[in-house]
């Protein structure tokens, strides 16, 4: 099971999300799929260059064994951004769903220009 490491796992998740974005016609499901992709990228960065047995980079621990703090700090930012963009997408989706009466991309695109 050497090959089953976190980077392959997150890469797999990324393409699962991508598959969802391409195939799902429901707007909510595409938003979920993009979130899966985002989460997989975050997982990838958190575990990049992670040594087995390392401890969280919190004051009081042994500095020699601490995990790389940079990706962890960055990923908090990325998570916050992801949440706010998702919230914005959902807010817009409510408006679109009310106006066009559908949550299907294919139906919406035909109703838009009439």
């Amino acid at each position: 099971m050497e090959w089953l490491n976190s980077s392959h796992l997150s890469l797999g998740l990324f393409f699962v999300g991508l598959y969802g974005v391409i195939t799902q016609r429901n707007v909510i499901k595409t938003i979920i799929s993009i979130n899966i992709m985002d989460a997989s990228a975050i997982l990838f960065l958190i575990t990049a260059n992670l040594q087995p047995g390392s401890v969280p980079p919190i004051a009081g621990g042994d500095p020699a064994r601490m995990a790389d703090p940079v990706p962890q700090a960055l990923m908090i930012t990325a998570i916050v951004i992801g949440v706010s963009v998702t919230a914005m997408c959902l807010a817009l989706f409510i408006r679109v769903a009310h106006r066009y009466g559908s949550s299907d991309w294919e139906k919406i695109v035909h109703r838009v220009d009439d």
Partner: protein
Amino acid sequence: MLIQYIPTLYVLVLLPVVVGAIGYFLPRRMYQGVLLVFGLVMIAISAAVFYEVRVMGEVVEQVAGWGDSISISLRADELSAPLVLMTSVLFFLFFVFNSRAPYMDNTFQYLFMTLQCALLGMFLSGDLFNVYVIMEVGMLAVSILIMYKKEKQSVYDGMMYLMINFLAMAFMLLGIGYLYRITGVLDFIGMHNKIAQINDPRALVLPYALIMTAIALKAALFPLFSWLPRAHGAPSAPSIISATLSGVQVKVGVYLLIRMQWVFSPVIDASVFFAVLGFVTAVIGFLLAVSQKDIKLILAYHTVSQVGLIVLGLNGGTDYAFWGGMYHIINHAMFKGLLFLTAGVIIDQYGTRNYSQIRGVFRRMPWIGIAGFAGVLGITGTPLFNGSISKYLIQNGLQGNLAEIGMFIVNLGTVLSFVKYSTMFFGKAPDEVKPLKDPYINGVSMLIGLGCLAGGIFGAQAVQLLYGQSYNLSGTLGAEKLIMFAITLALGIALYFGVVKRIGGFLQRIRDNKLNYNQVALLITVFFAFLTTYLYITV
């Protein structure tokens, strides 16, 4: 100098959003006044930075004084300083242009300032993750701004824009993750140095493809441009937003393309790929532009075409073509900004967006007509106007190979679509259309129009001033060029009246062909897969 005592670059990035936030609670008129003065301050600071870069070279600022490639840095160099200056000047002019618009409330102005902050941040950041963060901020601001006038399909346009870009940013984040795992730094220069020491180039294929997919989408390259016309030509987007997006924001993609290509340059060189892609984008862009009826959509699709031309120049492989492409970025910002501004005014006055129902702009609104026509002359590369200089440089840089014929085709397409666009300037205007008497709108339009002319007449000096490259540009007015332009113009007019006007049904089918979100996502995936395969074969 002043720059040594205060962190000018931080001020430049943060000040718009700080001033915007503090002044937000002032009454509208006062807020507008504050921001107008502030726009001048921004121009002054940008000019100081630009001067500093020209005279002393790169300006770098590190947070908290940590060393290179550890701390988060801001960096102004010869590539970004002219773009920063351009952004500040255009934002100020657009702001003045819009002073009397009814939708200029506090929220709009605040979001406009946020957009300026985001654009400056992207140009000045020396750190890839910061670029990612600022891109997301800019994306949120833009998606609200393009639906600001709340017209019928605005929410859909905003949602498409936001979700397509959100998807692309997920690609970018994973690419950053890969790059961080390989290099351990996020600073552009740090990454460049680490990449130079890598033995296995194939390890870099995946991060390169992931990041470039996101950037190609931001730069609206073929086949990832379908979000651009929706956003830039959206009926609900105020004209200054369309002008900002087409003039400045899309250049962020082009700028990052250059930056990231440089970062990867020791190992991966895909400039041939991007040169071909640029050419294809340029051709598809003008074909779609010609088939549109909506004047804002003609301009929006034409932005796609011009970005393709810029990318072709930047990847042309010679200094001439590269600096021609760089100069074309500035020129395109000027004339496309001007064209969007005047188009917005024309749409408001005529109450229609259909080019065939608009006639007689020259008679009804002479100032807007003249300024808009100067924009048309600029974009078609008419001798004496700025477009001719940059196109001449690109063409010279590509001399002696197939790309030169490509340039001719792109030029012909530009002329063709602007023959269509220009028909609205002539003829007799309907009586119900009122002349426009807004000194701000007329003044700013004329000023940018004159800028287009000045950029052409003093072309060599402008290139020298902006980029420190001296070229002999007397050839732009040579007999050969003039004859070539006349042939292109005649051919363009003949093609328009002979062919384009007769295939209305076919063009209607092109216009009806709208992509839904899943198809856009599929195109992004196909682009990513193609780029990855191409790199595996060539690297």
